[in-house]
């Protein structure tokens, strides 16, 4: 059987090994290379000893985690898996393998058991649970591979998240109302989302669509990329510049590096509304992905430490 057969079945053992090493080596014990690059730049740009020292500690921690093969942050956050697939992928099988791998590496100490019942707060003990991991599927029949992108996103950061359904009048000229809402949300969150943070913003659709867009934008895009939509690219740059003038700084201790990136996702919406979701990502960008080709060839997402 090939790795990915025409009838949609996988070589389960191969998949399990690949996903397990992806998570242990490239996700849980480090941060994605683009974010490492931005953190180093932020370190050089800081002018005070306290801010520089704080970012130095963050970078040292990443180095130590890589060397000692330990979780870079004690909190694994909440796992979301973005799967893109073509004509032949048995998604149920893939999800089953993902759940097994997450449970196994939890037992090995790469993830803290962190999933609890929302009301009783009872911990499941191995990061299993209803709706865990959060799976986002995207089908494209032209794809000749299956892509699995896994993001462990810290949840203390999510305490600052906000959604607002704007009326057309509230959007304002040049989206002034939306920009003010974003800046307000960042000020209210202060040091809570583990700055230097990244911000995902979803604009459009309905409430749930905006929220999903915000998560996808900040979780799947390289923080060094440029939005292909020129209008949104300008808005991302303007917001990033403003956020970094606020002075919140690394860890909320004060400084220039409050945000490393702002990423906006957009959908068309209805004339009555403009939903906007603001989604914080901590600096500990534990995410990685693989593309699996039918012949067993593997490609890694996020690549090397550069732009």
């Amino acid at each position, binding site marked *: 059987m090939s790795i990915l057969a025409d009838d949609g079945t996988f070589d389960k053992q191969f998949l399990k090994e690949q996903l397990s090493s992806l998570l242990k080596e490239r996700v849980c014990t480090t941060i994605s290379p683009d974010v490492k690059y931005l953190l180093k730049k932020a370190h050089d740009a800081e002018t005070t000893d*306290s801010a520089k*020292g*704080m970012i130095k*500690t*963050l970078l*040292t*921690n990443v180095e*130590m*985690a890589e060397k*000692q093969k*330990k*979780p*870079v*942050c*004690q*909190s694994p956050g909440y796992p979301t898996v973005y799967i893109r697939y073509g004509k032949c992928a048995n998604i149920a099988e893939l999800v089953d393998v993902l759940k097994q791998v997450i449970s196994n590496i939890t037992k090995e*100490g790469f*993830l*803290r*058991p*962190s999933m*609890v019942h929302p009301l009783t*707060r*009872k*911990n499941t*003990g191995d990061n299993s649970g209803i709706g865990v991991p959060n799976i986002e599927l995207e089908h494209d029949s032209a794809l000749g591979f299956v892509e699995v992108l896994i993001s462990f996103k*810290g949840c*203390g*950061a999510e*305490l600052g998240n906000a959604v607002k359904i704007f009326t057309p009048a509230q959007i304002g000229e040049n989206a*002034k109302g939306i*920009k*003010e809402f974003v*800046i*307000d949300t960042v*000020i*209210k969150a*202060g*040091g*809570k*989302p*583990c700055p230097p943070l990244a911000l995902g913003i979803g604009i459009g659709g309905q409430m749930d669509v905006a929220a999903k867009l915000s998560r996808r934008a900040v979780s799947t895009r390289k923080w060094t990329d440029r939005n292909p939509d020129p209008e949104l690219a300008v808005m991302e740059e303007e917001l990033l510049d*403003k956020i970094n*003038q*606020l*002075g*919140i*700084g690394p*860890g*909320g*201790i*004060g400084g220039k590096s409050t945000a490393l990136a702002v990423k906006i996702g957009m959908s068309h919406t209805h004339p009555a509304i403009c939903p906007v979701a603001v989604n914080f990502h*901590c*600096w*500990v960008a534990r995410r990685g992905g693989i593309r699996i080709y039918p012949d067993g060839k593997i490609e890694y997402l996020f690549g090397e430490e550069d732009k």
Partner: protein
Amino acid sequence: MKEVILNTPIQKEQVSDLDVGDVVYITGIVYTARDMAHLNIKKLLQDKKSLPEDFDGGVIFHAGPVVKKVGDGWGIWAIGPTTSARMEPYADMVGQLGVRAIVGKGGMGEDTLESLHKYGGVYLLAAPGCGVVHSEAVKKVLRVHWLEELGVPEAIWVMEVDKWGPLVVGMDSKGRSTFKDIAEKATTLKNQWFK
């Protein structure tokens, strides 16, 4: 800016000297406590039952570790601060317990500022997201409370630490808060941009 080592139990006088921006290292015993541990303590106090530890002069760390079984005991594999603002509703209770230092991330609110002033304590900021760096300071897990009931992150882990830091004073006992100052300045700037 001062740099001090605090040995537990910490005296009230030792923290009343500290100012925001000072750097602290802690040696001695530290208790982890998150949302559920605070809630359990509150319930025990309400029911006039005894607490699992005497927190007087103690250090509370807003954290839930990654642990590994080592022989009969536990090893701290990774540990770092969680978002402290969630523990704000227990500000006065924590002060009353005699806790002299709260360690966490992101800062806390007005009630904590008042409690630190009233009872004598400081809020210390630990580098966020640094699970390995902080775990290096942990020498030993002495005991754990409520592990079965609350699970690994929410249990109280009683740990011995050696020169744990640098931790930065983010809120002092004199009513000053780095987080409050920064938010006020940021709000002024925002109001200029969007007037």
